[in-house]
């Protein structure tokens, strides 16, 4: 198959037809990859909603070099041969992204201190990188009551950014249309069909795809901050899924089980609810070794396996000692 050449922020790469700008950028690497809050490689038709991945196409293609009139969602725009894209090099993109981040935050409760997602929250990362340090929004924020989606998942809609990922999980991994969006506009909410439990062996993956703390694991809620735990790659024989997961340990106790996430925060393989919720005994798992968390987060800052090799010296301390 012939390859298409695309240049993103002055890095050129060749990719097969059908590749999106976002995928191409990820192939080049972190330095050009736009942030993505709603796109999820494993979920068909995901992406396009959050608009954080907007980029500027300064040259459409070799054949039609005209620039695209508007910024485009890189997760849903496929590459053309000779296309030139600006991401971090375009002030227009940076400005628009700042706007998007601000919009995502105006109704977010910013309750990170009491949120289980803190430390592995994509919205935290995104706002740290692109947001402003104060809010210009002076109105009451929207709130919802928390609801239980079955006995294992808590939905805290107030934190939701409507990325639609959990809706796609429910549509694509579980049968029936029991979980979706009701109402419209800024009062839209994720909901199950008249508070039905989403009852399916793979429903727990909704928790993993949620970029914020809207869907959390009820067997783990408020048990520990994630950065106090040691993520370990582990596997077990499972007749429902591959059994390849990450167990999050404190001492010898397993506090929670999640899918293995790559450097973009997306899981490699879906895991089943049995592995996720019911196998919390160290004996259930064969531990392979420490899991490297690549996504920028407090967890990766605190790499425990590095602790022995790397002892902080005054020069490497990020802040100057006062006095």
């Amino acid at each position, binding site marked *: 198959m012939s390859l298409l050449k695309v240049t993103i922020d002055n890095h050129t790469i060749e990719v097969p037809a059908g590749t999106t700008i976002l995928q191409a950028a990820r192939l080049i690497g972190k330095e050009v990859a736009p942030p993505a809050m709603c796109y999820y490689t494993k979920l068909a038709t995901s992406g396009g*909603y959050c608009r954080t991945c907007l980029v500027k196409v300064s040259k459409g293609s070799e054949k039609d070099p005209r620039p695209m009139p508007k910024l485009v969602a890189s997760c849903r725009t496929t590459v053309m041969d000779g296309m030139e894209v600006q991401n971090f090099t375009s002030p227009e993109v940076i400005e628009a992204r700042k706007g998007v981040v601000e*919009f995502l935050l105006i109704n977010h409760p910013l309750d990170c201190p009491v949120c289980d997602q803190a430390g592995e929250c994509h919205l935290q990362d995104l706002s740290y990188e692109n947001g402003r340090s104060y809010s210009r929004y002076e109105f009451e924020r929207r709130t919802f009551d928390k609801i239980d989606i079955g006995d294992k998942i808590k939905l805290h809609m107030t934190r939701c950014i409507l990325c639609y990922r959990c809706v796609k999980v429910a549509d694509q991994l579980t049968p029936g249309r029991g979980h979706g969006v009701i109402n419209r506009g800024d009062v839209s909410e994720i909901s199950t069909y008249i508070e039905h439990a989403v009852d399916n062996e793979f429903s727990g993956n909704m928790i993993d795809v949620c970029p914020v703390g809207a869907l959390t694991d009820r067997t783990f809620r408020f048990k520990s901050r994630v950065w106090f735990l040691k993520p370990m790659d582990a596997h077990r024989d499972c007749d429902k899924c591959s059994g390849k997961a990450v167990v999050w340990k404190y001492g010898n106790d397993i506090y929670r089980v999640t899918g293995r996430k790559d450097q973009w925060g997306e899981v490699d393989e879906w895991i089943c609810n049995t592995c996720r919720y019911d196998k919390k005994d160290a004996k259930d798992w064969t531990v392979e070794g420490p899991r490297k968390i690549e996504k920028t987060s407090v967890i990766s800052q605190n790499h425990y396996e590095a602790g022995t090799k790397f002892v902080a010296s005054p020069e490497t301390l990020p802040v100057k000692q006062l006095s």
Partner: protein
Amino acid sequence: MSRKLLLTHDNVPNLHTIDVYRSKGGYASVEKALKKMTPEEIVEEVKKSGLRGRGGAGFPTGMKWSFLAKPEGVPRYLVCNADESEPGTFKDRYLMERNPHLLIEGMITSSFALGANTSYIYIRGEYFYVSRILETAIAEAYAKGWLGKNILGTGYNLDLYVQVGAGAYICGEETALLESLEGKRGNPRIKPPFPAIAGLYGCPTVVNNVETIAAVVPIVNDGGDEYAKIGIGRSTGTKLISASGNINKPGVYEIEMGVPVEEFIFSDQYCGGIANGKRMKACVPGGSSVPILPDYLVCKTATGEDRLMTYESLSDGGFATGSMLGSGGFIVYDEHQCVVRNTWNFSRFYHHESCGQCSPCREGTGWMERVLHRLEKGMGNMNDIDLLVELAKKIEGNTICPLGDAAAWPVAAAIKHFRHEFEYHVLYPEKVKDSKHGHKEPIMPVKPAPVMA
């Protein structure tokens, strides 16, 4: 007297019945199309006519039709967009109420041209009674053999259905409409693919406005060239205008493209001037989504030329000093109206109608509305005005569908031309507490001093 093509007989009693409609020459285009023309010839006539979409965007209809993919063994669909929910626009309703058979005739001729054997009219939920009128008319057409199997013995089959929406403005956006028609939540799709390639049920689909489809009837009857003789430049034919606001004669008018705006507002043939002898303050010429124009830019463009009722002339000057023909919802404001209140009102509409898929529109429309509400009530501050300009800019162009733009443009334009009025709301909170403050102390637009070269 200006030529009429769509509202020719709209005062004839019982025009909505098939016999009266037939006696006025109705269904001639179906006979001509099915018996004497090939689908390609019809598309060619539509191209020659220069007809542009009457739903708002003004995309050339013939070109849209020729983009329709025609893969073997895959059905094609024609969908009529009768969702008409843009504030200030009510022409499609009038047409369907008075003359439902004209739309049905247009649907048959157009479906034949596009090779569709199943077609839909998607009508706005609030027009429930109009859907009854259409359904009665469709039943008559079936009974007389204009719809169904083997129409006029030509072997062409067509089924026509009316689908009533649930009352959402966003379902007028063509891809949201298709989702809704498929029985799903009316969220706009991410384009591409465009409906011409993958539309209803993933099949090639053309979505056209009611008036666009009705205009196909005279085009086929008289020929595209004849149609193109009316109008100026790339704005051909006639256009239905829904005129409302502070004018003497609100209503639906069929105009020839190119009528001067001044004539349209002030002549007795049309709006009949500003009501109660007041002065005109502003005008929104194309429905709530298009930029508002201050009095001095309504009848003349910034360069001093007469502004005409055409796509080009109304948008002359871009968004700096122009607006758009849009869907033809022509709203006129007199000197006592408050632009801030009007902008808030529009903004409230878009906030309420946003589907909530994409973050800039979902969050931004609500934020703009709240800030405008605060300003309108005299509780805002000067920074709010710039904040609004910035929010509008952050929404515009960054969303999935044009509803985001439609929410941002009116706000940006109102502040551009009427900033002093927004400032007035900050400076005199006591006065603006009365929502009719404009009656006591009219605030007229301020024409900016010419900039010396």
